[in-house]
């Protein structure tokens, strides 16, 4: 059992190495490229707009997949953040709302 737990299939190691290499290349690649192109004012505005656009594009499919309950929870989080400006309270309210909504079967 212990021997089995600490063994690894050699083919599986190739999978892990491949996944690690691809992910690191993506992690470092975008950063690397932006150091090699001149940053024009237009490009800087684009870079500034990028974070919000990434977050919106990340959250929307989660809502589309998770349905009404998830959508409501994220509205709760945003509303709490606007009012109280504390991320941990916003997250707490959202999780509590999700747990509550699921109790009532949404």
């Amino acid at each position, binding site marked *: 059992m212990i021997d089995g*737990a*600490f*063994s*690894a*299939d050699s*083919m599986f190691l190739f*999978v*892990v*190495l*491949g*996944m*690690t290499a*691809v*992910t*690191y290349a*993506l*992690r*470092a*690649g*975008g*950063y690397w*490229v*932006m*150091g090699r192109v001149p*940053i024009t004012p237009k490009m*800087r*505005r*684009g*870079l500034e*707009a*990028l*974070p*919000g*656009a*990434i*977050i*919106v*594009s*990340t*959250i*929307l*499919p989660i809502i589309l997949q*998770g349905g009404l309950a*998830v959508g409501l*929870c*994220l509205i*709760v*989080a*945003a509303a709490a*953040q606007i009012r109280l*400006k504390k*991320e*941990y309270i*916003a997250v707490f309210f*959202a*999780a*509590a*709302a*999700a747990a509550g909504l*699921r109790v009532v079967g949404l």
Partner: protein
Amino acid sequence: MLDKNVSLSLKGCAQGVLMCVPVLPGVIALGAVFGTVAAQKGLTFLETVLMNSLVFAGASQFVAMEIYNEPLNWGILIAMVGVTGAVNMRMLLIGASLRPWLGPVPGYQTYPALFFLTDLNWLLALSQYNKGMRDWGIYLGSGVFVWAVWSVSVIPGYFAGSLISDPKTFGLDVVLPAFFAALLVPLWKGKRQTVSWLVAGGVATVTWLLVGGYWSIFTGAIAGAIAGAYLDD
């Protein structure tokens, strides 16, 4: 144009660690669920830990495990690596947007540190940068800390899968998206954001409906950035 005053201190790292605390339940639950999935799929403990700590990108690990099948062959290997690239494509953009922040830091420090890049520490670092923070410990501290927590959280999940059989019961599945939604709020400044986010949201939704999966993050983000680039205030 580049800010020359970017520094690194233990205090900054500690602040980064503290700022991740609200999302830890979400990170731990997700890591534990990955451990459970890996055990169910028949991975050994060592294989599970290696994949979890080296790849360190939750969504892509889950999607890759959907494809995993014993016995492994080159076809499955290529599919698993390919799908990892597709799911993590957004990291190109996340990394790109950190260039103005981390650009002044020497490469021998940033390139190892980029291993720890996730949506989480990227977002924390960025929101603090907008508030005038120039200590990149906020990025490094939160990155290393979340990596350590993520690496350990897989263990209980692997050995006692039933502990958190369904994170949904406690609302743990909304912790990370809720954190993102909360951190989106201070990024809104005016019309440029409104338009850029509407474009991003529209393109992401259409992409999601047409092809599903994770491409919508990439297409939506690029569309939103282009909209932001061509809009003058």
